[in-house]
């Protein structure tokens, strides 16, 4: 963003000619305070709760510290934590892989399915409102709660799934299947969320565009891909961002199931079990958090550059 210099008085005065008629001097004092407050409070909040903790995490990732005692008990050990994360911490590789699988899965199935549902519901089928409510219901529930609900389906001994299929699969406990079982549960929620976002977008598309396409003889599929989809660009970007965020911050559903062990490792759960638990490997956990930050930054950069390129066009 371009830096804002000290504003020259002339153009500003030209911009607000009418207000000058009032008692401008009296109001400006209030304006000044208001402006200061409105900028200072959000800025202080962002700096205090976002940037300082983030920077502190990066700094601490080069230290060994139990989190007990003053700052003088911190021992600086360079990049050793990172070395240990990559070479000497068996849960890290699966965690990274699981986060990636999570991202790809959410994109390929629930996101596309959500869009598909939205397109169907947009056609004003009979009972649209009922379906909308039904699909949107899981979105209202927290992921932790969804983990519990699906436990009823997945339970090895009393679960619905095994009863219907006649199998003895330990859906949450067997590390070969539990990630996929959890992804289905998470996707159940995600599809409803995407559906709602997309449906709202579709409602905003000018109907005359579709009419024009229909007059030109385009099929419904062609109309969607060549006319509606390009118009929906802002919503599409939002959906991509939402999906990336959801997959990176995936944590609660896995934590309530088994605290992110045994096939359900995620970077976020590793950070928590190292920093928050009785362990208190603050430095090591911070190194994991920093790696997560870097991965997030990659996506944020891609997103921002796309958005800005779009604006410039």
């Amino acid at each position, binding site marked *: *963003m*371009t*830096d*804002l*210099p*000290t*504003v020259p*008085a002339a*153009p*500003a005065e*030209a*911009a*607000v000619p009418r207000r000058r008629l009032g008692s*401008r001097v009296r*109001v*400006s*004092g209030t*304006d*000044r305070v208001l*402006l*200061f407050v409105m*900028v*200072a409070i959000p*800025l*202080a909040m962002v*700096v*205090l709760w976002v940037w*300082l903790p983030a920077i*502190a995490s990066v700094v601490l990732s080069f230290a*060994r510290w*139990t*989190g*007990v*005692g*003053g*700052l003088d008990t911190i*021992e600086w050990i360079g990049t050793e934590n990172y070395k*240990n994360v990559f070479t*000497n*911490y*068996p849960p890290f590789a699966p965690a990274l892989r699981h986060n990636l699988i999570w991202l790809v899965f959410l994109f390929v199935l629930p996101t596309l399915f959500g869009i598909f549902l939205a397109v169907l519901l947009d056609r004003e089928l009979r009972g649209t409102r009922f379906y909308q409510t039904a699909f949107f219901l899981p979105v209202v529930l927290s992921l932790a709660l969804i983990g519990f609900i699906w436990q009823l389906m997945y339970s*090895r001994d009393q679960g619905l799934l095994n009863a219907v299929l006649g199998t003895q699969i*330990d*859906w*949450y*406990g*067997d*590390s070969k299947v539990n990630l996929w079982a959890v992804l289905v549960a998470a996707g159940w929620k995600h599809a409803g969320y995407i559906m709602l976002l997309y449906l709202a977008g579709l409602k905003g598309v000018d109907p005359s565009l579709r009419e024009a396409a229909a007059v030109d003889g385009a099929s419904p599929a062609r109309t969607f891909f060549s006319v509606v989809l390009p118009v929906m660009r802002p919503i599409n970007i939002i959906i991509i961002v939402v999906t990336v965020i959801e997959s990176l911050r995936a944590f609660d559903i896995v934590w309530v199931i*088994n605290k992110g*062990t*045994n096939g359900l490792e995620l970077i976020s759960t590793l950070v928590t*079990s*190292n920093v*928050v*638990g*009785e*362990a*208190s*490997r603050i430095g*090591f956990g911070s190194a994991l958090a920093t790696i997560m930050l870097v991965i997030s930054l990659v996506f944020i950069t891609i997103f921002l550059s796309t958005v800005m390129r779009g604006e410039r066009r």
Partner: protein
Amino acid sequence: MSRPRSESEYLASLIPPSVAAAGLSRRGFLKGTLGAGAALSLSSLLAACGGGDDGGGSGSASQEVTFGSNQSDAVPKKAYADMLAASGLTVKVNTIEHETFQENINNYLQGNPDDVFTWFAGYRMQFFAAQGLAGDISDVWGGLSGMSEALKKASTGEDGKQYFVPLTTYPWGLFYRKSVWEEKGYQEPKTLDELVTLAKQMQTDGLIPIAFADKDGWPAMGTFDQLNLRINGYQFHVDLMAGKEAWDSAEVKKVFDTWRGLLPYHQEDALGREWQEAAQALQKKQAGMYLLGMFVGEQFPEKDREDLDFFTFPEIDPAIGTGAIEAPIDGLMMRAEPKNEEGAKQLLKFAGTAEAENVLLKANNTVIGASSEADASAYTGLQKKAVEFIGSAESIAQFLDRDTRPDFASTVMLPGLQTFIKNPNDIDGLTKSLESQKKSIFTS
């Protein structure tokens, strides 16, 4: 009104001229806020690190004593409530879910902890005492009677002062239902071979030989400890936990190898099961035995508890024998600089008496009193056996996660043992990884 050509121009047009004239540049403004924000958060950060030094008052016994409890399960929760009520002090109890309490202990102790809180004896206590998070209660110990020398040792920090009052203890062993064993004519095995023979017999009888659950990660530590104590003995356990012995040594490999031989007799899919469910398998007579602590009885209805019996893990190496057992001690600690020191110490003194233990034991018969003066006449058969069992032991270990560093137990051993249960064949790879991770943690 001219159309602004850029975003910054547009924003500039929104600022009243008076503000602009005052020369408030955005850059300067940013700098100021940033500085203020940094100063503010740094000071709060430092305050958070400083620990609770807001207390320190002496208080008096008539004032309220706060009590942080991890006894969230129904049976022990009531037992503790009864005991605190009998102390005659005004005690405000703050019960936190058992696992959550342990996970948050660092934050809890550095924030504003309760005057007295529940904790575990051994290394797990010393670790926090050494960091100045617990209060010295050596003077309370001066007034306690009925505590054995071993108990005192388990309550003493690295600096030779006492930080812990033992309340209850319980043994680990192989638990079984007497009625099932009588019906099938099983005998308690004395050696590993006999255990394997028995397990095979149980399989032919349609029973799961050994109930098993490791979803929470710690129950498997009990199995490891039992095998390690039988194969390598008590001293090796202590040295291994202290980081002095190597995890990729032949001794540890033998433990895993023996365990691998026993895994086929364990309940399948253990990683998706909690210990309560495995205990219910034993209670419902689906499983023949269960290697756990005596708290397994909590999952038994009152009338079935008399049917519960146990034996120690059988001998593996005749040169080592079965003299070493595991019997973790639970008890109380005092925070550093409590708000009501006099009241806290009075409560701890009371907790160390036979009177307090009798109240506690009356409500929970899956543990036994630590004090030798506790009234044993009301004990069930199982409790009496536990007293004798612990009393005759040559050496008593606490538990893997109580005898070693908490960071090593929770971030290395817990996933490590789960990996072993999943894939018991790569013992060399696993032990090598454990040793290499141990080295990275035991350096500080």
